């Protein structure tokens, strides 16, 4: 199916569902190496987003993503609020079009990653959501270059994010709250990397429908 405004709205709703369902899982991951609020933070944010996009008159994909961005920014707080907020904001900037082709999907993902790194100044290997976003972007770029459909690009991104998220288990955190634990942060999945997987899974699922 085509990646239009309908898709974007479906992505948002599936994201909200998935985050609500994973709330306790995210909380528990954050309790291990952070402060145990990642699930509550994102759930509060996406619940607000769901209300905000209800009946939204959007002309293009970017309109939807912009609402997501500003709503997350003003409801999530914590580290993930401005990070995801900026991610969706930059993604919105490059998606002011009614329908995304494979290269526009790549641009969306690149924009999101760029937003996260410019705000959070983390690099790959620091045990943050960047470790999920970065391989997601790589995989998406490769898929698009190989001629994949927009939906296939999202599937590739999801696979990349999943692998990247898994890689955070063995890392020692040097950014974010988990960095305070030093060596004790090793052996745990990064909560932000996990929520990244959930959001990209929602994007891919919305494109399957």
């Amino acid at each position: 199916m085509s990646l239009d405004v309908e898709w974007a709205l479906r992505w948002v709703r599936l994201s909200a569902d998935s985050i609500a369902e994973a709330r306790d899982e995210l909380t528990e991951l954050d309790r291990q190496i952070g402060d145990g609020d990642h699930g509550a933070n994102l759930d509060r944010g996406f619940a607000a987003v769901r209300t905000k996009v209800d009946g939204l008159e959007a002309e293009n994909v970017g309109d939807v993503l912009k609402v997501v961005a500003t709503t997350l920014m003003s409801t999530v707080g914590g580290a993930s609020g401005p990070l995801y907020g900026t991610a969706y904001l930059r993604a919105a900037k490059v998606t002011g079009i009614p329908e995304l082709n494979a290269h526009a999907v790549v641009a969306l993902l690149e924009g999101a990653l760029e937003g996260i790194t410019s705000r959070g100044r983390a690099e790959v290997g620091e045990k943050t959501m960047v470790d999920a976003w970065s391989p997601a972007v790589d995989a998406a770029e490769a898929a698009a270059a190989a001629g994949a459909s927009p939906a296939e690009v999202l599937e590739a991104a999801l696979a990349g994010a999943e692998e990247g998220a898994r890689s955070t288990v063995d890392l020692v955190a040097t950014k974010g709250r988990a960095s305070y634990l030093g060596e004790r942060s090793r052996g745990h999945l990064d909560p932000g990397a996990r929520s990244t997987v959930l959001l990209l899974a929602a994007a891919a699922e919305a494109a399957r429908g």
Partner: protein
Amino acid sequence: MKKLLNDPAKAVDESVEGFGLAHPDLVTVHTDPLFVTRATKAPPGTVALVSGGGAGHEPLHAGFVGEGMLDAAVPGAVFTSPTPDQVAAAIEAVDNGAGVLAIVKNYTGDVLNFETAVELADGVEVSTVLVHDDVAVEDSLYTAGRRGVAGTVLVEKIAGAAAARGDDLAGVTAIAERVSSGVRSMGVALYAPTVPHVGRPSFDLPDDEIEIGIGIHGEPGRHRIPAADADTITEALLTPIIEDLRLESGERVLLFVNGMGGTPSSELYVVYRRARRLLEDRGVTVDRSLVGSYVTSLEMQGASLTVLRLDDELTSLWDAPVHTPALRW
């Protein structure tokens, strides 16, 4: 989990509302977005101080809003930094035309949300001071750096006094930086706190172990040790502070023993007694003291030690009048 709360999702709003009702002479509570300002504005041309962070650390920060300290405080959800729109609204509300000093505890969340807020609050000149006093965290260019913990109160009090005496934004910022660079803290947890909307303790701590080098958000500490007596724990907390500050004989300090929320004040004085002795044994003079639960972590049991290197100016700014719900002289 048993707590004196109603719906956990409304806990912060209800608590801040009650706080405003109890102290109408000192503070005004704003909702949508939520922030707290002084009931009476500082004179025009005075630099305004804004601080904020996750709730759960009361009286920090709203308890320090008032004359001679903060002009506004911005509470987030429990242990979660406030959002940029809240912070920006507070900055705009209290600017007296002389600019705003934002006092930010060094956590990724607080830093990013304040950073975004400053971008939003255009038209107001804002400078930012980061508090990063926790010696439990290794400092390095390549990490998020040290956390801001109890030392924040000292930055807020002393910078507030500098603003009240009429220093300009650069001056107030410089004073705040001087406090921030001369203050170090370290904490211990005996029992973990329980975040209301989580419902179970923030970390698991066996009955015979304590967590050394904890933060104020229920993060686990740097390491665990077997439960020990107060004198032993006090020494374990104070030694890294003294070393990091390179305190020398003949210096003067402010010693601050902070309770984490669930600690009886009687225990804080037992810790104070030992810490003071240890400092004096090294020839360091404890010139000013603060003992109480000022930067808490819900009902966590434990304490932190904070030492600030004093000079004559910082001492007189510390002594300057302050009139807030939680600190007054």
